[in-house]
């Protein structure tokens, strides 16, 4: 940084002050002992003394605020926010930061935010309270107000300043979706005034603006201020506001208080002056801080996800590894997707199938994805060529020579899997890892075909592989820690989130996911209205209704798995509530699911893009409506309790060990209600005791599958929760 010599020798502080000859005071946020600046007292307290100097020292003519770290300021101290349970405390937290920013904004001297890197949340709010924003055009830097993703809202004036700056209708999507913009997009959107080539240029521009604008006020403090696009009573906005809650509920089904409060801040704040608007914002912020939903989301998407990404479930003592050459067996939908995500991060890929034609088809999948990405401006021709060049499509097992990782993704048939395991192990790197992408067959059994059982592990991908963020690693009885560490590293190498589970039929995700679909099909068999079942699924926070989901995974496949399990388990097999219905649908009615165009829904032909799937009218005849139709709330409980209870059983059986793995796995893996923060967090939030009580009630009414897991009964007795 081209800092001018300091006039005073300062001790290590989070905010350095440097006054230059022209009276421009540069404040550099640089918190000692941290890689990022974060909004807490350690930062705000030296900031406050700097502010006093700005206000009182006539020698200070202008102010530049920047950062000594790679990023500008990432935002609030989430740990601190998470700990707050008293709304008065949250209200005070918000109003104090607001008051500080307001003083800065109204100090009468020009204040420029020199954004050297990312400014998110409270960081962008600081910048918004400055009179001018100049940012280094660094493509990695992000600007936005992403609080909504943790169930919160920008409580440092963000909901008041952003709409006053760029208009109500432009600002709402940024806050409601928590979008993060590049510097260029932020400039285009009117959030940033100017871009700079580098840090020197940024500081130069910042200083020039200070010098050229000796008296600065925010637009909203200027006389005759007019809202861009009109305030909240402008007819154009009123019309939009009439439908805004409906549009929101179309996505949230009323499960998320944060978007609703953001809307309220903007609308109510859009009828008053900024100082009143800030008070409104602080009140709605406080409500969210103490809300259960924000606690759920912070718990899972902040603490547990961060821990997961830091390798909480990875065995220690093994050096971080990198896969150089991966062999993928089976070039179907899954294999093709795994090839794509691997090649994309620079791994050499051998994509093998029984025929060259099938292998080529698998590679073409990558080509299609890349062509689409280019059309959307997300990739280039040269990137495409480079990635495709890394994928070798083949029907020759010898081509797998030298692979340090194999992922087997052939049809779910034990004998077939055994055959390919043997032939592959004969040619691959003998020190390499053999991963099986199976969603149901126990890994320990599959490993029997392997000559190196300790190097054999389950690596379960989700479809479509390029979109789904999770990979479930399944540790077989003989899988070694070293193998687990390498599998874990590979998943992170392809930029996905790994969870680690132990071997069991259906492992963790498939098993628990199955309970949701099972419950939907059971409700249908009981005579509940199929559309109401679907709606209740959506209203519980699931991304797709259970019947539509069953169609997606195919009824015949589900039956196949059940048949296999029945064969394997013998007397221990418990027939799921859905089995009879699935059998009837597939065997009597010929409705196998989406892939044959008819399942619980009728599907329009693939070339008819406008037509929508419709529930099959024949359901009314084959599953006549019961006299008593359940409320949505009752069905919602059945869905959520079935999944959460099954997760608890997985914990009880040692299938899942870490609460974070369970929660993240449930949301990223099969779309369990994000508002609830995952299956185990749902139990925590309900209260283990209340969960047990309600589960028993459901068991009495609907069947023993709801009988609470023994571990929950024990936890309720001893007052424990999952942590």
């Amino acid at each position: 940084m081209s800092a001018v010599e300091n006039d005073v020798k300062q001790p290590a502080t989070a905010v350095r002050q440097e006054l230059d000859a022209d009276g421009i005071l540069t404040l550099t946020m640089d918190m000692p002992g941290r890689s990022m600046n974060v909004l807490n007292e350690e930062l705000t307290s030296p900031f406050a003394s700097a502010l006093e100097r700005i206000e009182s020292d006539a020698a200070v003519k202008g102010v530049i605020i920047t950062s000594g770290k790679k990023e500008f300021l990432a935002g609030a101290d989430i740990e601190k926010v998470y700990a707050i349970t008293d709304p008065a405390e949250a209200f005070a937290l918000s109003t104090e930061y607001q008051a500080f920013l307001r003083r800065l904004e109204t100090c009468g001297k020009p204040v420029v935010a020199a954004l050297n890197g990312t400014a998110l949340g409270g960081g962008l709010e600081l910048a918004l309270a400055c009179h001018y924003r100049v940012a280094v055009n660094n493509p990695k830097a992000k600007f936005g107000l992403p609080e909504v993703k943790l169930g919160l809202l920008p409580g440092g004036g963000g909901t008041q300043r952003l709409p006053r700056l760029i208009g109500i209708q432009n600002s709402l999507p940024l806050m409601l979706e928590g979008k993060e913009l590049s510097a260029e997009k932020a400039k285009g959107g009117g959030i940033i005034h100017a871009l700079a080539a580098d840090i020197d240029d940024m500081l130069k521009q910042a200083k020039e603006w200070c010098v050229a604008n000796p008296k600065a006020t925010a637009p909203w403090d200027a006389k005759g201020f007019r809202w861009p696009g009109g305030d909240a009573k402008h007819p154009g906005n009123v019309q939009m506001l009439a439908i805004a809650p409906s549009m929101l509920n179309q996505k949230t089904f009323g499960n998320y208080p944060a978007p609703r409060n953001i809307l309220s801040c903007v609308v109510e704040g859009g009828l008053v002056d900024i100082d009143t608007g800030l008070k409104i914002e602080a009140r709605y912020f406080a409500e969210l801080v103490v809300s259960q939903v924000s606690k759920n989301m912070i718990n899972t998407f902040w603490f547990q996800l961060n821990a997961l990404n830091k390798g909480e479930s990875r065995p220690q003592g093994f050096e971080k590894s990198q896969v150089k050459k991966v062999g993928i067996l089976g070039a179907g939908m899954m294999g093709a997707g795994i090839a794509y995500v691997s090649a994309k991060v620079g791994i050499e890929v051998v994509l093998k199938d029984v025929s060259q034609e099938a292998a080529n088809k698998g590679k073409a999948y990558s080509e299609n994805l890349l062509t689409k990405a280019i059309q959307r401006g997300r990739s280039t021709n040269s990137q495409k060529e480079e990635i495709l060049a890394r994928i070798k499509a083949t029907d020759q097992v010898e081509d797998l020579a030298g692979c340090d990782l194999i992922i087997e993704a052939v049809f779910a048939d034990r004998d077939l899997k055994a055959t390919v395991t043997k032939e592959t192990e004969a040619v691959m790197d003998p020190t390499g890892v053999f991963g099986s992408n199976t969603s149901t067959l126990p890994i320990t059994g599959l490993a029997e075909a392997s000559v190196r059982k300790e190097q054999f592990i389950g690596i379960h991908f989700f479809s479509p592989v390029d979109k789904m963020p999770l990979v479930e690693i399944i540790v077989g009885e003989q899988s070694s820690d070293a193998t687990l560490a390498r599998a874990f590293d590979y998943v992170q190498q392809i930029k996905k989130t790994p969870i680690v589970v132990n071997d069991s039929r259906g492992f963790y995700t498939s098993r628990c996911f199955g309970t949701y679909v099972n419950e939907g099909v059971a409700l249908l068999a009981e005579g509940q209205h199929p559309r109401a079942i679907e709606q209740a699924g959506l209203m519980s926070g699931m991304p797709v209704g259970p019947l539509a989901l069953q169609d997606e995974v195919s009824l015949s496949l589900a039956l196949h798995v059940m048949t296999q399990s029945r064969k394997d388990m013998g007397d221990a097999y418990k027939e799921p509530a859905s089995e009879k219905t699935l059998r009837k649908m597939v065997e009597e009615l010929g409705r196998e699911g989406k892939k044959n165009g008819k399942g619980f829904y009728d599907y329009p032909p693939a070339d008819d893009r406008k037509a929508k799937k419709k529930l099959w009218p024949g359901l009314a005849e084959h599953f006549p409506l019961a006299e008593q139709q359940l409320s949505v709330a009752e069905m919602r409980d059945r869905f959520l309790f079935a999944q959460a209870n099954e997760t608890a059983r997985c914990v009880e059986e040692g299938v899942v060990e870490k609460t974070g793995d369970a929660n993240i796995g449930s949301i990223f893996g099969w779309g369990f209600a994000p508002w609830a923060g995952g299956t185990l967090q749902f139990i925590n939030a309900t209260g283990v005791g209340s969960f047990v009580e309600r589960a028993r009630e459901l068991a009495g009414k609907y069947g023993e599958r709801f009988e609470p897991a023994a571990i929950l009964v024990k936890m309720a007795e001893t007052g424990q929760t999952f942590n």
Partner: protein
Amino acid sequence: MTDAIIFDAVRTPRGKGKRDGSLHEVTPVHLLKNLFDGLQVRNQLDTSQVDDVVLGCVTPVGEQGADIARTAVLYAGWDESVAGVTQSRFCASGLESVNLAAMKIMSGQEDMVVAGGVESMSRWPMGSDGGAMVMDPRVNDAMGFAPQGVGADLIATLEGWSRADVDAFAVDSQRKAAAAKADKRFDKSLVPVRDVNGLIVLDHDETVRGDTSVEGLASLKPSFEMMGQMGFDATCQLRYPQVEAINHVHHAGNSSGIVDGAALTLIGSREKGAALGLKPRGRIRACAVTGTDPTIMLTGPGPASKKALAKAGMSASDIDLFEINEAFAAVVMRAVRDLDIDMDKVNVNGGSIAMGHPLGATGAILVATALDELERQDKETALITLCVGGGMGIATIIERTH
């Protein structure tokens, strides 16, 4: 309890509520002045004997704002002792005025009241007054706000009524209105709108189209489909989870017309009427309001009518004529089904689909229409009911006095 007697009822013709409508040039207070003049002249009324004027107005902003009832009293030159109050019960406001007037008389606290309403929808479009239901997101969310047309489409969907079904109803409304107009059945209550010179601005209901056909209506696009798909359908599905898709069947041709108009009734005690030489025409026997689901919004007429009937100790079969406001075709069809009544007794002279629905005035217009028709057919009882914003319903039972 004092009987609430209807002595007279007058209304303006209804003008198309757009820029090219005949009443667009007329201020709402002038519409009212015409009727105040008419009422006074027809009844040789000593206006100082009137206690209060109750007017409905759904969009009381601008020149319709600031208590247009008292404003009109003074502008019309009535005695300054006559008070005035403006209220809104959305589309029921006109009938609410009648009911409030009746209650004032029944309670004995007042003896002679003018009740009615006004709406210049061309000059002050629906929604100009905002409202938390619409523009406050958390209120909007809490009540599951959806525009009334989406609610009407939802009714049709739940009842399984097709586009052809609702269009057939609309064609009938136009046919009946055209016949009634040709037969001069509205003339008794109709007071032409005149300008400051006394020249006639409009003397007939402007939007009646007797030649309407189901085939003709078929070309009209559904009015609420797009906004439904943008999000309001989803809001309906939150409350009606069994609905897979809403069938958007309503359009400009089978929904009430947007028009300008006003209406007044003269309601008082028998004694006061006798003292003023007024002839009793009808008696208000019972009235009721109620609330139902605000999202579907328009299913109030059935429950409100039943409540009023119960109050009167009557059943639906005791009623000779029904006026069920034609806000949307499906609303009337649903009310008919809820009350289990014969469609032949309903809206015999057409309704708002043909003649329009000047929000604040319609309820009082329907009272006038019902009373005229009872007299014409020499029948005894009529029930007037409307669906109401926010999910409410209103009903009034009147009977003739001989």
